[in-house]
């Protein structure tokens, strides 16, 4: 009887998560585009063959993975520092915590456009500073080699507070007695950090890593508004490519294929990073 209360929630989730995934699998083995008059015609895996030979898909995969790994690593490091700072007791901590949260609470698109202005050539502050210091123009948003770094900055700025809060929650579960005992045994703060804090924080670091990796891999809002995937597709993410396939090229069959492909890659990357972490943990045990 009580289980019936689960039904509406389960139905909603099945409808919004389940049906799309089934629909994508079906679409991915059909041609459904402007060419076919938006009618689905079975095409015997032609979409998948195209995906494997699609250089743009693989380039976007590499770019998305690069973006995700670099921003998530930076976020974890910065968030750890912020969490350690916010975990200490000092006057005005509440206010600082609220301000730290602010970037995370703002809509991504709002600050994506903000970053575009900040990195603008030649009028944005970064370029103006470059002029003041008599540096050559940086052309941050029009140089395919460095634009992705600007998107990393935007992502790190926005999502670090979120990771910091997860780590802060972890820090607060570590009992003070442990540190006291450690210091009584003659340990110093640096050793306490590596021998007490980090090991006990590990589950939270993993949670933050997994959560952020999945989100960063599906990055869309930031890229679409900040760079539109350019210059020369150098910042295009997989989600943006799937979006362009559907909304600009009106090729729904292939768009669905790109989405399943991205999802499979994401699962693969999550498993891979989990394995790497698991392995290094073993190695550390061996060296002890």
């Amino acid at each position, binding site marked *: 009887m009580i289980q019936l209360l689960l039904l509406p*929630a389960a139905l909603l989730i099945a409808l919004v998560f389940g049906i799309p995934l089934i629909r994508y699998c079906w679409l991915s083995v059909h041609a459904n585009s402007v060419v076919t008059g938006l009618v689905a015609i079975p095409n015997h895996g032609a979409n998948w063959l195209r995906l494997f030979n699609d250089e743009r898909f693989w380039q976007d995969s590499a770019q998305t993975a690069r973006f995700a790994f670099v921003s998530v690593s930076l976020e974890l490091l910065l968030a750890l520092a912020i969490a350690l700072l916010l975990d200490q007791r000092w006057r005005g901590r509440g206010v600082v915590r609220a301000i730290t949260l602010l970037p995370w609470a703002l809509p991504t698109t*709002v600050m994506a456009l903000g970053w575009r202005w900040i990195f603008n050539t030649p009028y944005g502050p970064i370029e103006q500073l470059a002029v003041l210091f008599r540096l050559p123009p940086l052309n941050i948003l029009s140089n395919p080699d460095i634009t992705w770094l600007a998107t990393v900055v935007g992502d790190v700025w926005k999502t670090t507070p979120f990771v910091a809060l997860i780590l802060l929650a972890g820090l607060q579960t570590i009992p003070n007695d442990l540190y006291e005992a450690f210091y009584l045994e003659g340990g110093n703060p640096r050793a306490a950090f590596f021998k007490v804090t980090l090991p006990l924080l590990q589950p939270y670091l993993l949670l933050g890593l997994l959560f952020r990796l999945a989100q960063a891999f599906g990055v869309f809002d930031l890229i679409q508004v900040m760079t539109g995937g350019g210059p020369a597709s150098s910042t295009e993410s997989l989600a943006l490519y799937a979006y362009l396939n559907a909304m600009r090229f009106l090729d729904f069959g292939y768009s669905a294929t790109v989405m399943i492909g991205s999802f499979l890659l994401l699962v693969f990357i999550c498993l891979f990073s989990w394995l790497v972490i698991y392995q290094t943990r073993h190695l550390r045990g061996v060296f002890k």
Partner: protein
Amino acid sequence: MIRTRKLWITALLLWSLAPLLWQVYTSFCSNESLLHTLTDHQSRWTLENYRQVLTANPPFWRYLLNSALVGITSTGLTLLIAIPAAYSLVKVPRNVARGAKLFLLGAALFPYVLLFLALLELARNLNLGNNLLALSFPYTALSMPLAVLLLSSAFRDLPSELEEAARVEGLGLWQRLRWVLIPLIAPATASTAILVFLFSWNEYPIALTWISSADLLTLPVAIARIAGSSVYSIPYGAYAAATVLGALPLLLLVIIFQRQIVSGLTQGAIKG
């Protein structure tokens, strides 16, 4: 020690606020002075940007209103469905609950942007496009996994004797929920509500594809549209004014509900 801490705090504040303060600064600059943002300029200060944004068609507060409407309906719907579900998740056998939680965690982790195409088809088939209230349907569903996880961990924390006592007193299931259990999980409910509201307020890809009529745009889409208007001649002054106006409600929200947001995220991290 204290001094280095102060240094770190200053760095943290600067990092969090500088990009926003730059937007505030830009929003008060006249268009001509934006060509020389860091050097002296006569007639720099102006309210023209704000006037322009607030008298545009539709005026900017319209988008704030739209976002608020979607946010409130999605939050209400989510709580209405998630609270009973979270309660029953505590009552089902342990292994079922564990399976359900893993499933919910997976759904919460899923990069939902990948769902947009199928959801767009759904909107077309059910005629839900260009309808603000209809947006709360996908938003409710997408918030559901996290909401159920947070709320069920709150229900689990309540001592079971409490509900037992209420049952002995002769209260039915509905009465127990209404008078005993739901009031007790109010803090978790508040946290969940804020997180769902923030998600709905900020959501972009679905709002982008479901809504095309200019009067019905939500804030994130309206702002992105300014970006799409032209690559080279974005009205940055007016845009910065829009950013500031769009950020103000959230600034208030974060300041007022800071405690709930923190506890919501941290509870989720500890028990989710």
